[in-house]
């Protein structure tokens, strides 16, 4: 789960990371009064889950409270990469002497949190990695010991030759590590970490992603989810405990298991079709999940046909068949459905489907070919 900048800021500030004052606003007048409170020139920043806000016009300087209100007026409601801006962050504009990058990510390869720092900050770190890899230093932190003082200072000295600034940056890295581990982050990033003309080290941005698996035991973090910033069908799916991602095609897919779901999408494409979604109903075979899955898929007007691909293991195929039956009795499905199911309680499932006039295939390739043919016939 990605946090908005203003939410990440709150975590950073609670951990003691020096950041400029400021607050979040959802109306121009709120933005204006925040600008009045903090004083001086401010930056008004769109709060959306998308990179490249600056280029899209989502970040504006304002020299007075009135200008801040006007900037907020322009930015609120703006669409950035398809996402409507609902909130802006208003912070004092900082005088910047230098910009560095400090990121902490959960790394699969070392199986540890890994720091990535660069004296070339303020720009995309992937760009730095590609063009000037020598300007990046990495450090895997052993979680049994945490970030050790010499490690933090070693990284900080790579950013700042001045020992006072390096000590300040080392402290910020220790605080960032605390934020990361205490909140189950998969990413915590400061870009840019700046020095001011007076020599202070200050974080000007906060980018935080939380491991979704952390949310069950951390209701405080779960509350930070901003569903207005997501695709409504994906929100609906998550509430129904489905993993769903909307795509651009026209073949709706209902599959159990993420790997099989991806392989199903690949096979749809292989046979000339275009998947309309990724959907994993998961391991448990609650018929309600099937009902919800169908509801979500059928709400997409692009969908021309629906493919079920169920390999019963823990998932009982008769539960899936029952879910399908229930769904069809609750709301009309106007597009053709092709069902492939095999495995646990297959015979029972086939009987249930027959009872509502449907047939079930047992071969995945055959099912995919058939659904692609149906879609093409319909086109």
């Amino acid at each position, binding site marked *: 789960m990605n946090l908005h900048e203003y939410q990440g800021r709150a975590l950073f500030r609670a951990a003691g990371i020096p950041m400029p004052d400021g607050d979040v606003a959802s109306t121009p007048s709120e933005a204006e009064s925040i600008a009045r409170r903090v004083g001086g020139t401010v930056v008004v920043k769109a709060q959306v889950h998308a990179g490249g806000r600056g280029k899209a016009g989502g970040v504006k300087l304002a020299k007075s409270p009135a200008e801040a209100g006007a900037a907020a007026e322009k930015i609120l409601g703006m669409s950035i990469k398809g996402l409507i801006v609902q909130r802006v962050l208003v912070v004092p504009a900082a005088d910047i002497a230098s910009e560095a990058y400090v990121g902490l990510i959960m790394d699969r390869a070392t199986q540890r949190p890994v720091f990535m720092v660069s004296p070339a900050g303020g720009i995309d770190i992937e760009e730095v990695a590609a063009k000037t890899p020598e300007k990046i230093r990495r450090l895997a932190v*052993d979680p*049994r010991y945490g970030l050790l003082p010499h490690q933090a200072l070693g990284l900080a000295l790579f950013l700042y030759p001045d020992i006072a600034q390096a000590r300040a940056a080392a402290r910020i890295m220790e605080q960032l590590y605390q934020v990361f581990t205490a909140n189950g982050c998969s990413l915590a990033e400061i870009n840019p970490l700046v020095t001011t003309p007076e020599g202070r080290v200050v974080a000007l941005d906060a980018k935080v992603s939380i491991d979704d698996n952390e949310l069950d035991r951390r209701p405080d973090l779960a509350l930070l989810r901003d569903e207005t910033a997501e695709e409504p069908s994906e929100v609906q799916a998550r509430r129904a405990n489905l993993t769903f991602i909307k795509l651009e095609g026209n073949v709706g897919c209902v599959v159990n298991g*993420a*790997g099989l779901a991806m392989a199903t999408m690949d096979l749809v494409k292989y046979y000339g079709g275009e998947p309309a979604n*990724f959907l*994993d109903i998961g391991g448990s075979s609650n018929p309600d999940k099937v009902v919800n899955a169908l509801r979500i898929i059928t709400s997409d007007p692009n969908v021309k046909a629906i493919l079920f691909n169920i390999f019963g*293991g823990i998932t009982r195929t008769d539960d899936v068949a029952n879910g399908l039956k229930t769904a069809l009795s609750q709301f009309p499905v106007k597009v053709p459905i092709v069902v492939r199911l095999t495995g646990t309680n297959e015979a029972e499932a086939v009987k249930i489907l027959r009872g509502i006039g449907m047939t079930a295939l047992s071969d995945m*390739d055959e099912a995919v070919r058939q659904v692609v043919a149906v879609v093409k016939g319909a086109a």
Partner: protein
Amino acid sequence: MSIFIDKASRLVVQGITGRDGSFHTRQMLEYGTQVVAGVTPGKGGQTFEGRVPVFNTVADAVAATGADVSVIYVPPAGAAGAIFEAADAGIPLIVCITEGVPVMDMTRVLPYVRERGARLIGPNCPGLITPGESKVGIIPGNICLPGRVGLVSRSGTLTYEVVNHLTRHKIGQSTCVGIGGDPLNGTSFIDCLRAFQDDPDTDLIVMMGEIGGTDEQNAAAFVLEYVTKPVVGFIAGQTAPPGRRMGHAGAIISGSSGTAAEKIAAFEAAKIAVMKRPVDVVELVQQRM
């Protein structure tokens, strides 16, 4: 022969009295797995299904029954604790089925397990099966057949799909291992490739990968260097949009290292025969056995 488990494996089920634990324990007993103990704190002294003694702790279970494999069906909040407990009790092979274990927990679990010289499979995995001998986890036993193909996979049901094709064509398996798709897990492709390469009763290896991370690329490099047996591979997620997370499998495309195209290229460079579709496994294996 086989890797990791065989008919001598003595299994303890952590969370045996829970919903998933009890269901799958029955399945494993039916399959013939030697389930020698269960663990549920507070239920020590009970007996599961009239035949499996239940203990309060894994240490008690090991002391009483000599269990040497553990399978974990406890909810996510307790899964890391259960792995710590199994490792601390000296269990050399720990299989964690639980889905949704916080990754931060795994950063501490993994070194703990390694320090004790134990192997963890998972979390968020279907477990493993040595057909005809022992099944630990949730892979359906009826789709497997004893034989000489070793299979390792990051996913669950996709594994079943492929195993099913093999079995229907009378191509048996030495062991099928689902290593799980979480970003941090205990056993890698490489661990399994090495074990299969060293197993005299495995002739060919099937490796089922996914987008995200670089495990498949590392595995391909290892194949080039170490594996002499034929390898057949698959990568799921060729049509997945970049930058989106495809469900719990943790298939995240991070930067340039993790796309299906890149992984397939790595497989091909390592002379791994790449399936275009799951069903292709049959022909590719038959050509190489």
